[in-house]
């Protein structure tokens, strides 16, 4: 059975798979995680702000995003972003948005909902004495958040944030539904062009598996180190 395998197809497509595909996947993952974290933190702050309307809007956004399948959200933004672009720029026709930009916006908006829940838990885990002590020193609300609360919340939640980023790394494969050549998309293109589905999908699985395993091993190491320091 293995004799029928054509492992050369993998060797021939390596540069396409990694230089094009994996670069797309990793860039998308890194930028989405960063953007998702920033927006997620803002959403978490809105929820905890004490202003009822703001908290309500933020909560609604998070619950809404978290009840939809990522695939559907990807489709939504793919079709919606051109119209939003048209509205923002005041152009007369829906503007053209590239595959990368469209996916990036989708993942930032989607992941923000998940990251905000993690940051909210992180902020809530910090003892009430900390903001009180900061205010007592004369720091404003913004300063308290910026210099006292958020750094601690971020550090405490770092393992969870990284685990979520690994999930995000795997989830970026879903841009496949838009026929975008991320790592899996590239593998799939080669697979279909050369009729080598078995080899290409097994190889893609192996690469995703290896990267995720190493990453989650590092997170576990980090977690146990944090646990010791505390």
């Amino acid at each position, binding site marked *: 059975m293995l004799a029928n395998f054509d492992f050369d197809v993998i060797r021939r497509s390596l540069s396409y798979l990694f230089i094009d595909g994996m670069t797309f996947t990793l860039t998308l993952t890194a930028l989405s995680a960063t953007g998702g974290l920033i927006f997620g933190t803002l959403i978490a702050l809105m929820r905890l702000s004490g202003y009822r309307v703001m908290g309500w809007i933020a909560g609604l956004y998070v619950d809404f995003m978290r*009840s939809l399948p990522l695939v559907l959200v990807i489709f939504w933004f793919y079709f919606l972003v051109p119209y939003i672009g048209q509205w923002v720029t005041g152009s007369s026709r829906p503007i053209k948005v590239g595959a990368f930009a469209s996916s990036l916006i989708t993942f930032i908006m989607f992941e923000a909902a998940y990251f905000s829940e993690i940051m909210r838990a992180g902020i809530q885990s910090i003892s009430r004495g900390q903001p009180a002590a900061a205010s007592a020193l004369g720091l404003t609300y913004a300063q308290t958040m910026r210099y006292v609360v958020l750094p601690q919340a971020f550090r405490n939640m770092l393992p969870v944030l990284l685990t979520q980023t690994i999930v995000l790394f795997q989830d970026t494969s879903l841009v496949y539904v838009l026929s975008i050549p991320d790592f899996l998309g590239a593998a799939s293109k080669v697979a279909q062009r050369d009729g080598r589905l078995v080899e290409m999908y097994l190889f893609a699985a192996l690469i995703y598996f290896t990267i995720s395993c190493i990453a989650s091993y590092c997170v576990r190491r980090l977690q146990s180190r944090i646990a010791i320091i505390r």
Partner: protein
Amino acid sequence: MNYTWNWHIFLEPNPTGAGTYLDMLLAGLKVTIVTSLSAWVIALIFGTIVGILRSLPSRLATWIGFLYVEFFRNMPLLVQLFLWFFVLPELLPRTAGLWLKQMPNAPFYTAAVGIGLFMSARVAVQLAAGIGSLPRGQKMAATALGLTTLQTYRYVLLPMAFRIILPPLTSEFLNTVKNSAVAITIGLIELTGAARAMQEFSFQVFEAFSAATLMYLVINVIVVIGMRLLERAVAIPGYITGK
């Protein structure tokens, strides 16, 4: 926005000739529900077995449980579905592979099994954590009464552990529903797939996706309410979970 809304589109006949576009979406909704429930049953069965393995004192059992979870957790669900759908039939002996390929409804079975196993790893992690959160003395007390390990799990540890992890299981079930949309990639016409098909035929993108979104929201609300009722039904008088 120069997009022409047409909410009447749902009542217009769909191109398959069988009913309206709304019927098409409802058929997709049904596939989503059936697929999710089937996958969930598989996830619960395998998740329970692996969760128990992970909580046993035996090194070998813990190790097997660990490998199982890592295997299913470290690959994108989409890739796993491709492995089941495109790769597995080629790796099996010829006749078995052929049988798999020609199976009617192959996308449905692949989705149920693939998503089920993917979710089972997460159920296993939750269950092992739930068992681990029980006082160590519970297992000892059951053992001291002469119950076997199997009986100890069946009558003492699992009933408590499942009660404790009911809230996280609710979100895992909702994840199962959401993950069923990934099966669009192997040709399953579930809810998202039906909305996508409607968009392609009718060009009414936003109506199609709005309707699908609404249906997902309704599923969420129903599941959350249902699980809350279940939680109340199995709550133990006087016992505060998370003590």
